[in-house]
């Protein structure tokens, strides 16, 4: 039994069906890349897994550690070890990076972590992600560059230590150097915690660092192909069309 089981998941957004019965097992200590053309439902899957209220689960189930969590709120899912690194993280004005992460950590752990212990965790992980210590007192994501936002997401990941991390286009908006630092950070957390990773991406670049055990392709809200690391190379050079998969013109549902 995998830690995260997705069973025949059908999801619609504002009445429009996006996922058409996705089944996927994601286990701890395993790196899965999820690829697919625009509009195929990658981000929808990420949001549905995390329990966004706008993403209505029409049928199917999500199980964490054998427990059906389909009806649970996002906070309960986070407490059970699920983490989503957002493609476009929200700004949280007036709440500093340090206070935000501390409240999150206390919530996930279900008890307050002593301040000195927390500060140590924060400093170590910020150093790992090559972040300026002054960053901790800035308001979360407010006025952050694309790369800074992604670093802040991975900082949260590193401190919260989930069982499964869904990384929704963590590579978008980052330059080459930032992507390397972020990816190395993810790998360190992975090595330390043996978390499972579902990495959603359009590009091979991040996969060169994260080295997925397998690559899953989805189209029209269904899994259409599964392969090894090389599948990502083929897609990068030849495109989805080589596999008979059409790129959708329609805009992605998630902004």
């Amino acid at each position, binding site marked *: 039994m995998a830690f995260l089981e997705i069973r025949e998941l059908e999801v619609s957004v504002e009445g429009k069906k996006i996922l058409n019965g996705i089944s996927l097992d994601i286990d701890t200590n395993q790196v899965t890349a999820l690829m697919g053309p625009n509009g195929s439902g990658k981000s929808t899957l990420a949001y549905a897994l*995390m*329990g*966004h*209220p706008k993403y209505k689960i029409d049928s199917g189930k999500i199980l964490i550690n054998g427990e059906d969590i389909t009806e649970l*709120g*996002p*906070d309960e*899912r*986070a*407490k059970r070890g699920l*983490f*989503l690194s*957002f493609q476009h*993280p*929200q*700004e*949280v*004005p*007036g*709440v*500093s990076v*340090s*206070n*935000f992460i*501390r*409240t*999150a*950590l*206390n*919530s*996930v752990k279900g008890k*307050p972590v002593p*301040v000195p212990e*927390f*500060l140590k965790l*924060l400093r170590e992980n910020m150093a790992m992600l090559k972040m300026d*210590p002054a960053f*901790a*007192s800035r*308001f979360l994501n407010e006025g952050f560059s694309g790369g800074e936002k992604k670093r802040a997401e991975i900082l*949260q990941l590193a401190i*919260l230590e989930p069982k499964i991390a869904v990384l929704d286009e963590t590579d978008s908006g980052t330059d080459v150097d930032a992507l390397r630092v972020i990816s190395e950070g993810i790998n360190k957390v992975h090595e330390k915690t043996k978390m499972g990773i579902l990495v959603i991406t359009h590009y091979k670049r991040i996969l060169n660092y994260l080295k997925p055990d397998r690559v899953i392709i989805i189209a029209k809200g269904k899994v259409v192909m599964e392969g090894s690391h090389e599948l990502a190379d083929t897609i990068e050079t030849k495109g989805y069309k080589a596999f008979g998969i059409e790129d959708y013109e329609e805009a992605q549902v998630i902004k």
Partner: protein
Amino acid sequence: MIAKTETLNTELKKTVPRKTFPNITEDLIRDISKARDEPKWLLDKRLSALKLFNESAMPDFKYGITVKMNAVELDYNKLEVDSLLQKKSIEIEKKRLEEYVKQGIIILDFYEALKQKKYEELIKKYFMTECVKAKDKIVALHAALFSRGLLIYIPKGKQINGTVEIDFEVDNSLNFDNILVIGEENSKATIVENIFAADNKSKINNKEHANNKNIDKDNNNNNNETHNLLQYRSSVVEIIANPSSNLIFCSVQNLNRETFNFSFKTAIIEKDAVFNWVDACMGSKFSHAETTSLMKGAGSRTNNWGMFLADKEQQFGIHANTIHFTHNTISDMLTRGIIADKAKTIYQGLIHIQQPAGQSNGYQRADAILMSDTAEADVIPMLEIDNSDVRCTHGSTVGQIDKEKLFYLMARGMDEETARKELIRGFYEQMLARINIKELTGILRAIIYERLGIEQESIINIDK
């Protein structure tokens, strides 16, 4: 026809609220003045204010668009006016006062100040002048009955670092408080006025707020004793920002939930002066709070920062006005409020750029967040522009907490209540960071965190 008209007149008489009250008389005012040994000009000022009070109609507070304020319990027959005969003064902690004096700032009780010719002249010149022009019944009542006052005088060129803190401990009866601040040329000072209920035994501060959990219980006990009387606080603050002065006046109002609160704050801002308001409306049963910046001198600047937090059945009318009288003046108004439970608030903001005020900028923004389906808020920004060579913008929002932000926080493990609190905390913290006055931040945090049920100790400051 005649009969009809008569009926109409009778009906009108019935519906028009009474203007005079048997307890508020000329004799009373003479006695109040006598108890304070006032100069004749001051008594005359009181008496002319009484005339204005008797002649003007009761305000109906119907300035909202969708929100209807309800002030039926505001009955001046229930004012315990006899308590005004007793002379009171505004206490400032001796140690603090000595510190201010050492820095060269002059802080005097009105009646002490009146004994000195120089200060009497200043008081005579500025006391209850601009704000009375509004011919408002409630301001007129204040001018007739004012009971204690403070003069804060910052001499020419005197630059005060740190803040001057004034505590107003307001008891359950009747209070008509005045502050007159005169900043002479090139002076600089930040004044923080902390208004809290006397039954809120210990002064709200960073450390003690946790001990104040029985406030509601205490209030109820007091109500039983005084339920026939109106708890009423009226406050007038007048600021004279002389050329090139740099003054900030912050007010934190945290009165008990039985008090009707009226505050009228006016600043005259002269050439090249910078003056900022910070007005935080937190307590009281019913508040009508006005802050007005009169930009009389070219090159002057003003910020008006407002914050409010209304819950249960509180009703707040917040009014921020900036009048640009002359050219090259810059104003910025920013107000944020949270409305919860069955509270009602109306924010009205006015920028008036007069014809001679070319090359001026006016900006205003007001945001209100509703925390429940039963909370009500109107946000009404207004612009009046009589000169085309100006820049002026305004924006406002009334809405719920952003659902995407809420999801983001919950995806990090915070339950909905914690996530909401964090977002509200941030909403205010962002303002506090912008205003950046340490003492003010401390006082306001204590109040906001207590109301939201956040342990202040749970917030860490990484900079330390």
